[in-house]
């Protein structure tokens, strides 16, 4: 292995990490970006991004990821694919252990590990994942041509992907635990106007039933009445969980949900450690925020490194 110590390591290659990589590379910092899968992160799960500035017609998540990566590479982004299993943080040095037994160290670490879709946690979900239970409408919608699918959730992701599913499915039933959607108005208007989408309000899914594939859902209404709904598939889009398995959560004083608190400049409680993007403890999780925080984090890192020397 080449150089195992860097001034700056960026952990994660979603919009936050890639933007941090772009800034660090362009600032000619001694840096390394580590990604476990493919650059892009969760935006690869998104069919279409309509609210990222600079793309008047919108852009696919896939294409946006490729463009940010290409931009970072233009400034000689230094990146590698690796799986970090644990991290040791001290004021002076930060050490990362990889699953192949190697270890890396840095003076400054930017954590951009992001988040992943949250499962329902009901019987049948695990067994039927990939057999009708899905967390990525963009990936799996084409398997449901002329079928009936359910979408669980009421936020932006759920409602946007419900609309995407109608390009393939005959009928999309949105199941939401409240009596109104949390999704932004324009997405709501589109969904209500779509004849292929119907809604079941005040209801949760308590079980997913099927042998070789999803056959039906057991539902529980807020008034305690139960019912069944026959569907060919169910898309679970109820928010995210943090990717924090490798992080020392006590040291970073993670919040109840396992996200990492920072100050406005993305600095965590550990000097020289920043967190940017969906892993940060915050209200709003948008691509544009993640990118902005990635940039902020590099500027904070530069300042920290300057003070060190």
């Amino acid at each position: 292995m080449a150089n195992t110590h860097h001034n700056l390591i960026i952990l994660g290659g979603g919009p936050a990490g890639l933007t941090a990589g772009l800034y660090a590379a362009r600032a000619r910092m001694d840096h390394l970006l580590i990604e476990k899968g493919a650059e892009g992160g969760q935006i690869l799960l998104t069919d279409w991004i309509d609210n990222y500035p600079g793309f008047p017609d919108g852009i696919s998540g896939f294409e946006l990821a490729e463009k940010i990566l290409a931009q970072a590479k233009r400034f000689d982004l230094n990146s590698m694919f690796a799986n970090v299993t644990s991290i040791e943080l001290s004021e002076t040095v930060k050490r990362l252990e990889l699953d192949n037994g190697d270890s890396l160290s840095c003076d400054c670490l930017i954590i951009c590990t992001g988040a992943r879709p949250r499962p329902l946690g009901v019987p049948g979900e695990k067994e039927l994942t990939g057999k009708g239970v899905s967390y990525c409408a963009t990936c799996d919608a084409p398997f449901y041509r002329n079928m009936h699918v359910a979408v669980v959730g009421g936020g932006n992701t759920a409602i946007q992907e419900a609309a995407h599913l109608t390009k393939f499915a005959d009928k999309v039933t949105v199941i939401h635990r409240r009596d109104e959607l949390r999704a932004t108005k324009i997405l709501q208007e589109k969904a209500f106007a779509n004849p292929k989408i119907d809604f079941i309000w005040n209801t949760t899914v308590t079980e997913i039933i099927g042998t070789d594939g999803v056959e039906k859902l057991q539902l529980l209404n807020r008034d305690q009445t139960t019912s069944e709904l026959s569907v060919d598939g169910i898309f679970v889009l109820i928010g995210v969980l943090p990717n924090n398995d490798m992080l020392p959560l006590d040291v970073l004083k993670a919040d109840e949900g396992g996200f990492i608190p920072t100050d406005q400049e993305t600095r965590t409680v550990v000097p020289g450690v920043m967190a940017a993007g969906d892993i940060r403890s915050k209200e709003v999780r948008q691509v544009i925020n993640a990118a902005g925080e990635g940039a902020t984090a590099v500027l904070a890192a530069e300042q920290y490194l300057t003070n060190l020397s």
Partner: protein
Amino acid sequence: MASDKVKDVSDADFESIISSDTPCLVDFWAPWCGPCKAIGPVVEALADEYDGKVSIVKMNVDDNPATPGKFGIRAIPTLILFKSGEKVDQVTGAVGKAQLIELIEKAL
């Protein structure tokens, strides 16, 4: 994620490939699937590590609808492990390397 190690298979040559004496891992994917892209480097690395012991191939579900239909695939990436033509086990989603190794070892 083109790799020489991970060969493309089609509906036409699928049966002959999985019924070989060498166990076979098939990565069902499509170009529009982000997580399929995410799992690509891991699958490639495993193809190197298990070279000669397990043949690792991929199938584009857009171009080859028959085989995914036969195995009831409703989500991608799905990776199915075959031994002597029989399905041993499968995983779905952009799982980690450890989980894929666990799957592959079931055929060895």
